[in-house]
């Protein structure tokens, strides 16, 4: 007679299944990444598709990234002022806003906003192409789908994200400056001087390097989940959700690792 109570073996099996599935996913993503990197350096190169992707991913992300940055910079100035006033250190607002935007908030928030906008659209577009047999059609037309669809998007995101991060930094610092002079009684020239004095080139450079990594992650996840989309509208929806979630989590994880590498001795 079976009791129905779980045995140690069945409990281990229940634990092992998701672990094995996760490891298999990591393996598939790794193989996909290796394949993309291989195609990045081998012709043919689809320059027209690259130009189109630069426009879609870089240029059209500017409004959302800019809006995110200006509000974040403003809120950051208010928070640092409120915190700094406890120690009579209100004067640090310009430098902390600048360093905070350049090192962390610019790349991370920019990356997350681009993940929401771009990873979802890439996954939905490629996923729809898969379920409507457009990917099969590419193959029959002697065109490698990875090279034609994934490589231009991944390259475009990697190249344009550092520029978006730089724009995000500048607008975020402007947001802090605007709040500083209108709400916190800072002198405009002093605020800007403090910003420039304390901000170092590596603060901006490290954020742009992070941006390139985040751009790669965003487009990679969009392409991977789109290419592996299941059939039907539900499959495309699931691929889109998975692309945004995985890109966001990987951005935050990569940000921690890069911060460790760049800023701890």
């Amino acid at each position, binding site marked *: 007679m079976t009791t129905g109570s779980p045995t140690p073996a069945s409990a281990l099996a229940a634990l092992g299944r998701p672990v094995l599935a996760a490891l298999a996913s990591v393996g598939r993503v790794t193989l996909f990444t290796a394949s993309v990197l291989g195609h990045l350096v081998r012709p*043919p190169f689809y320059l027209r598709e690259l130009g189109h992707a630069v426009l879609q991913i870089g240029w059209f992300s500017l409004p959302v990234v800019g809006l995110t940055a200006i509000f974040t910079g403003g809120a950051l100035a208010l928070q640092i002022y409120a915190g700094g006033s406890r120690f009579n250190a209100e004067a640090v607002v310009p430098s902390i806003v600048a360093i905070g935007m350049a090192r962390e908030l610019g790349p991370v928030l920019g990356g997350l906003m681009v993940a929401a906008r771009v990873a979802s659209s890439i996954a939905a577009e490629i996923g729809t*192409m898969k379920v409507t*047999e*457009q990917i*099969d059609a590419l193959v*029959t*037309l*002697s065109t490698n789908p990875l090279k034609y669809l994934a490589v231009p998007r991944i390259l475009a995101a990697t190249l344009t994200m550092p520029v978006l991060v730089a724009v995000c930094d500048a607008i975020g610092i402007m947001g802090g400056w605007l709040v500083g002079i209108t709400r916190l009684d800072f002198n405009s020239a002093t605020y800007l001087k403090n910003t420039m004095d304390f901000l170092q080139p590596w603060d901006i450079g490290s954020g742009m390097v992070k941006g390139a990594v985040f751009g790669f992650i965003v487009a990679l996840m969009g392409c991977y989940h789109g290419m592996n989309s299941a059939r039907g509208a539900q499959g495309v929806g699931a691929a889109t959700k998975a692309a945004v979630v995985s890109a966001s989590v990987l951005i935050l994880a990569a940000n921690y690792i890069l911060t460790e590498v760049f800023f701890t001795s």
Partner: protein
Amino acid sequence: MISLTAVHKAFGANRVLCGVDLTIPKASSMVIIGGSGTGKSVLLKCVLGLVSPDSGTITLDGQDVTKTDRDAFLARFGMLFQGAALFDSLRVWENVAFRLLRGPKALPKHAARDAAIEKLRRVGLKPETADLFPAELSGGMQKRVGLARAIAAEPEIIFFDEPTTGLDPIMAGVINDLIREIVVEMGVTAMTITHDMSSVRAIADHVAMLHDGVIQWTGPVKEMDATPDPYVQQFIHGRATGPIASVR
């Protein structure tokens, strides 16, 4: 000549192809019939290399298709997909000229556009269609554009996947006639999968019936109606009773 020998394919526990043997003579039109879900599309995709068979061999002019140069192999093929599979982001002429604009023998843009417009004319579409996007076309027009794309690079072999699905009977007749004209005119080897009997009679030189993962019957189209094979008879007359279970 395309030859399939003992081709097997399963997706998990679902055995779709269970030893398919089939020969498609050069410059002839073979139509594969069978109910929905019997593996017709899988069979076609196995030949094209879009799906890898689990076992068996597929040869083209005596050469194993898995061991030939992939680009050279695919350059010999044209394919009309069930839903046309046009690229949404490209204009109609760019869809038709897709292969002509790429690869080592790529044509200049204006020459590719001219060639695309010529192919569009061949399938009965006006030159003004060339600058539209696929979403601006009706289903029948999309099928014609798909057909123009399939013949654009003058292939030796053309595959048609359910060419009349979703079309009204008149448009289906137009597409069938176009396919037959093009196959005869270009002297290509054609493989069509369909369950539309009017397509079969319009397009086929030879017919093969796929059921339960194997070819149940194959022969010239003129022998199809007279064959005593119960599977073929049930299918072509659309009977609910017979060896083919009506609920699959």
